[in-house]
């Protein structure tokens, strides 16, 4: 199936056009196409909690509504992505390959969260240095031997670790809420409180981020391992809109 629009009026339209100046071009991600919005994550008493909605947008079109953006790598690490979904799927494949290679080496070592984070950040920085970036912001969360890990890496190779992380719009809308709720309480927040905080942040994002979606997943990484749960809905209240002049019936 060839759909070279230049050739629609030709008989041999299925052939590669001879005058296509892009035919042999090297292709690079120069802009994200199908995208996911914010990812939220923070530390709490038992480990790390992350959340992301299930929407993959095509520009402003809500194109795919059931896409998982939380991805477990190994037994105690989760990566979560915002940005280009196809680049994310490539990274999933890449990390899976690495994990398999490490597994069949069979030397008794498993990649820990820090190792996966380091690997991913080198890939991201390497790609940006070749002017061929993977158009994502990643959050890497993990829990190994009682130690919590939460890191961020983006398309420029910028990295940092923090007790609260929010990508995309979440950086403006949810990060202030998370900082207020979590900073200084990383070792005392219970799971119930963490869920409460996460849900309210996802609700704020759904109210104000036009590329978000009212269906999200949560993940936690604790001593028991990784657990991705959901999908959940944020309880929202819209009936006030009817009272607005020029908006209601």
């Amino acid at each position, binding site marked *: 199936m060839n759909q070279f629009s*230049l050739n629609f*009026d*030709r008989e041999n339209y299925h052939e590669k056009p001879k*005058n296509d*100046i*892009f035919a042999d071009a090297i292709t690079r991600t*120069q*802009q994200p196409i199908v995208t996911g919005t914010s990812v939220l994550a923070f530390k709490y008493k038992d480990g790390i909690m992350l959340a992301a909605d299930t929407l993959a947008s095509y520009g402003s079109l809500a194109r795919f509504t059931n896409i998982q953006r939380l991805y477990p790598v190994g037994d105690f690490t989760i990566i979560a992505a915002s940005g280009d979904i196809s680049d994310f799927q490539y990274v999933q494949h890449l990390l899976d390959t690495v994990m398999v290679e490490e597994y069949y080496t069979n030397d008794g070592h498993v990649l820990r969260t820090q190792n996966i984070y380091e690997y991913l950040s080198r890939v991201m*920085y390497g790609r*940006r*240095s070749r*002017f061929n*970036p993977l158009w994502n912001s990643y959050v890497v969360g993990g829990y190994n031997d009682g130690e919590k890990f939460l890191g*961020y890496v983006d398309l*420029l*190779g*910028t*990295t*940092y*670790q*923090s007790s609260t992380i929010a990508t995309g719009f979440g*950086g*403006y809308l949810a*990060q202030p809420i998370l900082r207020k709720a979590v900073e200084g309480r990383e070792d005392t927040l219970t799971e119930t409180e963490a869920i409460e905080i996460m849900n309210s942040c996802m609700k704020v994002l759904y109210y104000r981020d036009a590329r978000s979606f009212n269906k999200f997943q949560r993940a936690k990484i604790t001593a028991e391992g990784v657990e991705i749960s959901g999908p959940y809905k944020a309880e929202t209240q819209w009936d006030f809109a009817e009272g607005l002049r020029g908006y209601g019936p």
Partner: protein
Amino acid sequence: MNPVTLYNNDIFTNVPVEAPVERNFYPYADNGGTSLGIAGADFCLMASDTRKSSGYSIHSRYSPKAFKLTEKAVLATNGFAADGLALTKRLGQKLEWYKHAHDKEMSTPALAQMLANTLYYKRFFPYYTFNLLGGIDEQGRGVLYSFDPVGSMGTEVCRAGGSSAALIQPFLDNQVALKNQQGVQQTPLSLEAAIRITKDSFTSATERDIYTGDYLEIFIIRQEGTTIERIDLKKD
């Protein structure tokens, strides 16, 4: 469609083809932050705040950008943090090779020259970092070097780098190098005075510069070894 339109010169003439569009992927960011170095007679002080920002967002409150490279040298990087980290890693690796090849640690002046070469090696795709390298030389004297992103190197007595450089440097010129002061006698700066000036510099810079704050790390490099002190700055 792009305003520039090309036409193909064959039988299907006047078929519009979009001209190649250049989309700008800009591979750099400014992560803010400030560093400072003071070289004394028998010590060197290196200080950096630990905030990492981008635009109006604070990414992390504790993300250090000053690194102990050898027992006698500390590197402070400013500008694009990812490059700073990559550069630090590269230097660390070269220092390791040097140690195995020569069975000794590299001297600070040699490390400064190596840093200049490493930066110049990437002259046409630079590490976008403004570096300060401080330490003690083989005679135990405090030394301080500053670099631009492409490897120009200068020897300094006191230098501020990063987002608050313009706020702090004149203060250091006056208080450390004793510039524009009349009738002062040039006595060597004590470590206590250097620490006091450093703390004052950073608390003041934090007031006015949104990219500076959270924590301050002060490295003091002496013949006996390197110590590190961590101090709170305002977190607003």
